[in-house]
């Protein structure tokens, strides 16, 4: 029944282990805090940009999972700090003896599980952003004119603020606005011939123009913004529609938002990977420290050598022990013979 991965730990290496563990635990707590901040930031960003993502998009699950994983990592780090500090001080260690075992199990299962889940989400979800953004932006642009329709009255303001803040125009370029009616029918004069012509010439009865909203305007342009009659070469002096338009923002909002969200998810993912590594190291170190100190019987100052290990026996033996212990617990009122049989059996299997 050899212990798994044993390590001989005399006094000095034990002290070094505890000190190194203290440092790693603080780093883990810091990393957990950073993940909390990053995922909080991403959640706030998603709240603002929520209208431009399709409702079926699963992307908001990522920062929520990362938030939970970060909180557990922070907790594990603080536990590691306390335990490594206590392992150097004989008076402080006894209360930790009973608590450390369950805490380690919880940390590995809960913390490790959450981190793996969050990492997986960070790798898988950004791929679905493309379609979600496309759908969301199409809806938003279509509802730009519906400032009096309940449920969509904020669309104009949100799209304008998006284009102003992120320096983009339309979905993939400013020409997207030519295919959408963005002027509300309420402000169209039915008696105007030009308006009537446009509406009649369109199959769906939409009023389409070659103009864009004011929020597409680029302040860096040297001339006052040209918003209307952008396909007409004779409408404005010194303006050629065939040249790249320097008047308006060149990028489409789809590309800008995709890059922005993917960057945030990428940062979060790399932070999660680093935290996973740190957490694994801290949990391993704590386990070795715990088993080494158990070997001493919980007496810290003894200078003797002990052995630290990961598991007391191989996996098969552990399962057998657990099964037997479970069997003993489930058996009814103990009689003379069966309990006498069970403990010798357990001794045999442990010896």
């Amino acid at each position, binding site marked *: 029944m050899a212990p798994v991965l044993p390590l001989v730990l005399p006094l000095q290496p034990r002290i070094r282990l505890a000190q190194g563990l203290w440092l790693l635990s603080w780093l883990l707590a810091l990393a957990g805090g950073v993940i909390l901040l990053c995922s909080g930031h991403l959640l706030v960003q998603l709240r603002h940009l929520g209208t431009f993502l399709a409702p079926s998009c699963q992307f908001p699950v990522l920062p929520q999972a990362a938030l939970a994983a970060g909180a557990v990592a922070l907790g594990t780090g603080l536990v590691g700090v306390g335990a490594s500090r206590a392992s150097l001080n004989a008076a402080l260690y006894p209360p930790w003896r009973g608590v450390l075992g369950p805490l380690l199990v919880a940390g590995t299962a809960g913390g490790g599980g959450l981190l793996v889940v969050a990492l997986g989400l960070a790798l898988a979800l950004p791929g679905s952003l493309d379609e979600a953004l496309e759908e969301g932006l199409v809806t938003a642009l279509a509802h730009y004119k519906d400032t009096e329709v309940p449920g969509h009255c904020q669309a104009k303001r949100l799209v304008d603020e998006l284009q102003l803040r992120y320096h983009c125009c339309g979905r993939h370029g400013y020409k997207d606005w030519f295919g959408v009616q963005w002027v*509300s029918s309420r402000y169209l004069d039915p008696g105007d011939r030009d308006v009537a012509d446009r509406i009649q010439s369109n199959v769906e009865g939409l009023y389409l123009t070659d103009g864009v909203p004011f929020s597409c305007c680029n302040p860096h342009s*040297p001339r006052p913004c040209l918003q209307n009659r952008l396909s007409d070469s004779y409408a404005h*002096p010194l303006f050629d529609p065939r040249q790249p338009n320097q008047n308006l923002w060149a990028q489409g909002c789809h590309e800008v938002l995709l890059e922005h969200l993917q960057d945030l998810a990428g940062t979060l993912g790399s932070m999660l990977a680093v935290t996973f590594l740190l957490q694994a190291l801290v949990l391993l170190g704590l386990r070795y420290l715990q088993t080494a100190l158990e070997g001493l019987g919980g007496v810290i100052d003894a200078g003797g050598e002990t052995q630290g290990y990961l598991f007391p026996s191989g996996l098969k033996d552990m399962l057998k022990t657990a099964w037997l212990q479970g069997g003993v617990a489930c058996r009814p009122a103990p009689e003379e013979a069966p309990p006498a049989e069970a403990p010798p059996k357990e001794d045999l299997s442990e010896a």
Partner: protein
Amino acid sequence: MALLKVKFDQKKRVKLAQGLWLMNWFSVLAGIIIFSLGLFLKIELRKRSDVMNNSESHFVPNSLIGMGVLSCVFNSLAGKICYDALDPAKYARWKPWLKPYLAICVLFNIILFLVALCCFLLRGSLENTLGQGLKNGMKYYRDTDTPGRCFMKKTIDMLQIEFKCCGNNGFRDWFEIQWISNRYLDFSSKEVKDRIKSNVDGRYLVDGVPFSCCNPSSPRPCIQYQITNNSAHYSYDHQTEELNLWVRGCRAALLSYYSSLMNSMGVVTLLIWLFEVTITIGLRYLQTSLDGVSNPEESESDSEGWLLEKSVPETWKAFLESVKKLGKGNQVEAEGADAGQAPEAG
């Protein structure tokens, strides 16, 4: 009769010294906070110096930065003194320096209070610089070809978008200046020629505003041109239309931004000033109580601490006397020198 006498035994003195040591280190942190507040204000003023004619006064942020640095230095020194105060040998080194040091601390506190007051009072000068600077900025809006002023259009546009404002006092300021460069005007058009002829200076004035004045919350697409002409747009009345453009002027918007910034900095500085005054009073009590321990060997004995040895009028009289004595001392020396020279000459 001493002012605000308090009895101190050894334990109380030790507690006072330890408490003061901790407070001094918190005060160093507070000094760093004041320093960073001053730095932040300086950067904010620099960012928008284009619309302030580059002539804005940096007095408030500079004094906050200076006070922050001084506070760090003084308080770390005071922390060291408090740390040494409990060891009679080390304290004997500091003893002769403490009285002038406390006088400097009192002076520092007075200056800190004045700086905090300045944070509240100096918005008037900012208003004038802003008014002038914005007027010039709007004048140069169209000069995107002139080197040295080509950035003004971008600056004013970004300012109006960020601070949600339009023009100097309102959007009508744009009606009075030519903000469209001649380069982009079609001089063969009759309308352009009419407008230029009807103006005394030959400027092309329109009742229109740049796009950055538009308010995204408006339910209708932004009306930028022919703003005062109701018949040019369907279902439009410029008297009742409020959501189309930003109504606030940029001068008021920037002024309120900087005022709130300086007010909050003034409040923080006042709170830190109160903290510093408490530290100075504690240090004075520590100094007088340690001086009251008459015999250095009996460091366990009780002593008294006070703020002033005699009451306020008596202290003021004694101060005036010492100043007079200083003057008289010089006089006696001068007479002595004359008397010395006279016998030599004679």
